[in-house]
């Protein structure tokens, strides 16, 4: 971690701020445990709906990930979609890369007849389309990924109207992502909050603070506390009676703890 400068380290305000950041980081991490697969489930619904609405052979969503920079296909729908999940392309490659880089919606057809360009990207994903329509996924002014639809069953190309509809689906996906991405983008989120709060802080100082605040979150993953959070997240599907029972049991533990606190360990 880069050292904080002495003035910054000495400031009580900053120390209070850091504690607050750590608390935010801890709660966001806990929230993330509860939301495992929530993003995937929402995105899956969107690509399934896209494939069915357009009568497309495949529809998929690729999201931008860092280290290394890439667009990773997270979900896919349609008969030809499944092979692409888990694959990545560079953000400088193909129509997906172009749409991500510019935020502009584009459709291309007649791809399969030309072996020189996007076909290479498509071949790696296991299915070479004749036509593709791709629109950006936008959250909070940022392009975070791309929604694409490949080949209509009817053989028609994608129309201007199709692109507008696809953009509407992408807006839903964007909303789903910003609702569930708190944990995923936690360091980014904290850094942007710090820049907002203390505009004259240098990038190194911001990085140092964020790193301090998020330090240990991963190391914490195996502790009994996080194991309990995981257990609790699995209780969501229980019925009312079972949930009452779990609540009673936790109540007993809490009472036991408070007695122990009052009278010391027995």
């Amino acid at each position: 971690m880069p050292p904080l400068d002495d003035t910054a380290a000495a400031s009580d305000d900053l120390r209070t701020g850091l504690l607050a950041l750590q608390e935010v980081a801890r709660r966001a991490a806990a929230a993330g445990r509860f939301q495992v697969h929530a993003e995937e489930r929402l995105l899956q619904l969107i690509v399934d709906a896209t494939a069915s609405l357009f009568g497309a052979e495949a529809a998929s969503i690729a999201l931008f990930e860092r280290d290394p920079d890439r667009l990773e296909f997270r979900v896919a729908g349609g008969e030809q979609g499944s092979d692409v999940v888990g694959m990545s392309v560079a953000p400088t490659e193909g129509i997906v890369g172009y749409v991500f880089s510019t935020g502009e919606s584009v459709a291309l057809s007649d791809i399969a007849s030309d072996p020189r360009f996007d076909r290479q990207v498509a071949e790696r994903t296991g299915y070479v389309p004749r036509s593709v329509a791709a629109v950006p996924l936008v959250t909070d002014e940022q392009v975070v990924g791309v929604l694409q639809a490949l080949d209509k069953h009817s053989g028609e190309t994608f129309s201007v109207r199709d692109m507008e509809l696809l953009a509407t689906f992408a807006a839903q996906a964007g909303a789903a992502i910003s609702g569930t991405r708190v944990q995923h983008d936690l360091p980014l989120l904290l850094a942007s909050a710090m820049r907002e709060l203390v505009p004259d802080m240098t990038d190194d100082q911001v990085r140092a603070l964020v790193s301090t605040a998020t330090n240990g979150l991963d190391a914490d993953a195996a502790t009994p506390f996080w194991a309990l959070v995981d257990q609790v997240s699995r209780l969501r599907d229980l019925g009312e009676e079972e949930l009452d029972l779990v609540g009673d049991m936790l109540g007993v533990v809490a009472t036991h703890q408070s007695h122990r606190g009052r009278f010391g360990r027995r």
Partner: protein
Amino acid sequence: MTVGIVDSGVEADHPALRGRLIESVAVELRDGEPELVPDDGTDLFGHGTACAGIVVGMAPEVEIVSVRVLGSDLKGKGAAFAVGLDHMIERPVNVANLSLSSKSEAMMPVFYDLADQAYFKRVMLVSAVNNVVGPSYPSLFSSVFSVAAHSEPDPWRFYYNPNPPVEFGAWGMDVPVAWRGGGQTVGTGNSFAAPHITALVALILSKHPGLTPFEMKAVLAAIADNERPA
């Protein structure tokens, strides 16, 4: 007439360009700061070549100036775009084709200022409308020629929309376009519509070089293919 293409670069030796690319630069991030560097006339994606090809196809005598603002380093994309646009205004070119936009509210004042500079220097900015909901600069500014796609396969057919922010409609569906590696494809999107208006503006300017942006808009509105009430 010089036409600027602010995009993914333009492929110098693509047959569709007919040797009309006279200058090629790129914006790269050096130590986090966007900087203009010479470029060897390559196109990362094919999109800039597609736009330039449409322009040269309709206005074969234009000279194309390319500034590549998309690169491998994706940080500071909006800033790179602004530097590229600034280069086109300072150079200046007669018309600049912008098939991209920035969604960043923080960059809005920068683009606002650039759009004003362009307007006063008589550099016509032709921008594809972004069909994603939300801010999109500079395509939403009033001094810019904002273009959306229509589906009639005629490069010369265009419409004027009296209800902005989108002011013009040009062919943007199933347009045969040049692409990377000397190739071709068929493209759909507002970004393929904008170069049709760019080419028209260049042609009109070559005949009437003194026109200001607002006069050019008035001319386009008057010769558009839609009937308007008298």
